[in-house]
């Protein structure tokens, strides 16, 4: 068969499959979308690396942090002297906090289908190494970092933010 016939057959095959899948997958798809909505509303990322003493303040509660713990939108992460914490967010953004640092995930949302969403982070003091992820790649305007004195717009991809904080 020539390429044109092949093309038509393939197109037909995809169409047939779709009609079938509409009814069969209906229930399964509802379940999948429910799961991802719940995730998007809560979890921003996960603690992947840790050295020393690090804690997260969440809705007024202070939690000791270990590798694998969730990081939620609204969390304040604080590291003690000689301590470090590395977070990978759901859009593959990597945030690593240095010693005596304080970091707030002000806002996080990420749609895994469209890659639209929002990441706003405040660095109150200390240091933060950033490798931007899928949010900044899809839409640079959706990612910002704030220190009391500076506002950063990200056009990719790797940088370090240093903040004097109150000691200045």
């Amino acid at each position: 068969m020539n390429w044109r016939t092949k093309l038509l057959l393939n197109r037909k095959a995809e169409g047939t499959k779709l009609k079938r899948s509409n009814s069969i997958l209906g229930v399964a798809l509802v379940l999948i979308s429910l799961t991802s909505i719940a995730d998007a509303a809560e979890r921003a990322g996960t603690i992947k690396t840790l050295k020393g003493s690090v804690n997260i303040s969440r809705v007024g509660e202070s939690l000791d942090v270990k590798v694998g713990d969730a990081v939620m939108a609204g969390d304040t992460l604080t590291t003690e002297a000689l301590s470090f914490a590395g977070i990978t967010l759901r859009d593959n953004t990597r945030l690593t906090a240095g010693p005596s640092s304080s970091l707030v995930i002000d806002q996080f949302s990420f749609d895994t289908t469209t890659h639209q969403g929002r990441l706003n982070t405040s660095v109150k003091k200390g240091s933060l190494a950033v490798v931007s992820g899928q949010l900044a790649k899809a839409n640079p305007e959706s990612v910002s970092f704030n220190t009391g004195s500076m506002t950063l717009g990200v056009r990719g991809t790797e940088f370090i933010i240093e903040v004097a904080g109150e000691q200045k």
Partner: protein
Amino acid sequence: MAKAAKNAVLTTVATLSVSLGAIWVPMVEAGSYVKSPSGVPVRDTQGVCVRTTYTSSKLQPGCDPMDRVILLPDAEGKVGAVIVAVGQSSELIDSAYGSVQVGEAGEIESLASSAEEVQASFGQLLATQPRASDRFVVRFLPGSATELTPDSAVVIQAMLDDLSKRKAPEIRVTGHTDTVGSLDANDRLSKQRAQTVVDILAAQGISLDLLEAAGRGERELAVPTADNVDEPDNRRVEIIVR
């Protein structure tokens, strides 16, 4: 304002001499801390910057607490860009180790850092970064959302090896389609393809807690095409391990 102006003058003639006031001192450095010939602050055994015999009003990167941003090259050596706004001013950084800092008077200052200074000041921070995500691509037999091409077994084995090297790993499985059919239909088809791969990974013993399925439909073509083009390389599923 006068102080800011003085700082600006100091910056330009720093290598020649001046300290504050009218006293001219023949100096190599205008900062309060000792620097190596390559410009990296010299530190004592505690990691604290070694002071010179006088005090400069000029903030010195790596030693004085300050607000600054340093742009780094990525793993492939490519350099992106960051726009830093301070009050009404803003500055674009787009060169490797380019840096912007907030000066003593709150003014924005451009001052290049270097690989050496970043390593001295932030080496341990950079070494603590989480492992970068890795991407594995599997493809489907023509017209199928359930049958992978034979070479996919090798790809999945490589993915499992990658997974075993990670702490607290997570996996997002993202389906993609070619541009044949409507956006909605392709969204559904891409999710169906992702679910097929999630089932395969679950059957390999990967916990469902680590797995997330997503469908990008025809939004991210591996091979750019016009609408309604049959393209096997676009009918794929990407497994991103992070």
